[in-house]
């Protein structure tokens, strides 16, 4: 029982790989009047529900003061319906957000992250104010330091410390690197 508990805890609380970036990718359309929030998700990952729930709260409490974009990876094994369901969920819960599906490799290239649930907050100038996860662990909703830091950056426009990202790997290689702890920095 202790072993099972340990495995379960390890799974839930082991963060994914997210090296991070310093500036906004060039192909991201930043809003010149307000900060831009980008969330990268895996459409099949169950953890995505917790990340989108947190994002929904932020969008509702900062309506008109935040530009939000959700990028979903397009893994080959994931059914198209999963992406469509993910898009529908975003459109229904966060209507102000834009949704776009991209290959995982592109997302990895643009955002230097391979973990679902990674959030970036860019200033209108493209400066990274926050980069990290906003859930306490895999699939666990609720208050956590990552969410607090993000809200602080939105409120102040100042950069805050990042937070581990708890989510599914966007690619198999990322999963392997997590398991082997040899992910590129």
């Amino acid at each position: 029982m202790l072993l099972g508990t340990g495995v379960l805890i390890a799974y839930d609380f082991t963060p994914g790989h997210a090296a991070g970036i310093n500036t906004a990718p060039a192909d991201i359309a930043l809003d010149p009047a307000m900060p831009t929030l980008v969330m990268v998700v895996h459409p099949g990952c169950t953890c995505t529900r917790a990340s989108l729930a947190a994002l929904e709260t932020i969008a509702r409490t900062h309506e008109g003061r935040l530009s939000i974009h959700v990028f979903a990876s397009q893994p080959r094994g994931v059914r198209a319906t999963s992406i469509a369901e993910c898009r529908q969920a975003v459109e229904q819960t966060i209507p102000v957000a834009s949704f776009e599906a991209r290959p995982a490799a592109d997302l990895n290239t643009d955002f230097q992250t391979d973990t679902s649930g990674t959030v970036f907050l860019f200033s209108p100038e493209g400066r990274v104010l926050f980069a990290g996860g906003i859930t306490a662990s895999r699939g666990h909703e609720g208050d956590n330091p990552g969410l607090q830091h993000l809200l602080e950056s939105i409120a102040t426009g100042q950069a805050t410390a990042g937070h581990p990202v708890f989510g599914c790997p966007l690619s198999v290689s990322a999963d392997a690197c997590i398991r082997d702890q040899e992910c590129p920095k």
Partner: protein
Amino acid sequence: MSASTIAPGSRAQELFERDLRQVHTDTDRLFSWLLLAQWIAGIACALWLTPLAWAGDQSSVHPHVLAAVFLGGVITSLPFVLARTHPGAPITRHLIAAAQMLWAALLIDLTGGRLETHFHVFGSLAFIAFYRDWRVLATATAVVAVDHAVRGWFWPRSVFGPGAVAGWRWVEHAGWVLFEDAFLIPACLRGLAEMRKIAERTALLEDGKAHTELEVIERTRELTAANHSLAQNEAALRTANNDLHAASAQHKALHEKLVVASRMAGMAEVATGVLHNVGNVLNTVNVSARVLADRLHNSEVPSLARAAGMIRDNRAALGSFLETDDRGRHIPSFIVEVSECLVQDQRELESEVEAIIAGVEHIKQVVCMQQEHAKHKSQFEPVNLAEVVESALRLQQESLSRHGVEVVRSIEHVPAVPADKHRVLQILINLITNARQAMENSPHRRLTVTVAHRTVDGAPFVCIDIADSGVGIPAENLTRIFQHGFTTRSEGHGFGLHSAAVAAQALGGSLTPVSGGPGLGSTFTLSLPATIQPGVTAPSGELCTES
């Protein structure tokens, strides 16, 4: 009542322990199904919420599913088996309490740490309180406290999240559990106290029931004995009943014989009565006939015939004979005297003939009455008692005159009464005859007949008093005078007054004697209702006049 009031080893203690064991057993069995349901629900929850874990384009079974199946199975299996195999054992419920708390932790994790799932902890504690054993609550609380303390110490993020928390945060979590315990433990103790009360009352009831059963057994034994006795009595009664039936049959046969004998005796008695009545009237008729014979014997008719012979012998010189002859000169005056005597005789003979006719008529009525009696018929009709009294006196007139009895009448005008005329007449003839006989040796013979209207006990009656100046009746005989066969006369039969009293009762009236004593005469009063009395039917039977 506290636990100390139940004596160890007592029946109440035994009942309390039995009931508590039953509570533990029932709750264990309930929890066994709950654990199984939780396991299934946990797996379903994991399959629904987190079926797959993804890594890029590859998916695998989500660890939550594996945890629900295997970790949940481990948590469930041992307490489930114990609950099925050792229900009621202390270890079973303690393990169940621990399993419930572990299941709460697992479910919280499976549901992504949902706040609502934390209610499972508190719901389980309330459920565990069903055991009414505070120690089990302590076990559950200890599991929560140890889990939070150990994980909080070694891996705080797993229980408190990724933020830095103070080392005593587990105390806060355990404190909320203790907060609920603060209510549940007193409830458990209160439940135990109530169970003790119930056990003590049940013991008292059992004791009472045992006494009652003993009483019932004793009473049943008595009833059985009584039943046995009753059965014996019943057998005896049945035997007696059979004997009674036999005796009854004999009695019936005897009764029939007696009826025949009685009928014959009755017929003899009736015949005697009839003969007496007829005899009495025949006496009157006989007297009248004798008077008639005497009158005829002493008639002046022969003298008249001799006078007629002298006239016939002297028809040729009748004038000179009547004028010159000494015998002839007396013939005219003689004829006048004889004619006057004959007229007187004729009047008296007519009276006697009427008496004879009346007597014969009465004899006829007596015979008719007897015939009607034989047919059980009699006729009530309005009767003028004054007329009946006169009829009776007329019938007795010759006898009374011959005995020198002075008759005094005091007759009021009274309404007709419903009665049988001839029966009343017979009563009066009996009473007058009795009075005449009572005065045979008296120097002054006076018969006073009174007819008056009187009220007796608020009811109207017409009363006829027959009072004589005869020998009177001694006080000791007043109550016996109507007995059948009672008489003070050597030649009497004791029929007259008896039958008169019986006839008076049959008419709805009464006959009562009054006498001042010997030598002071007596009075018999016949009282007849002025109206028909309820229940009075036409009388039957006949009367006998005392002879």
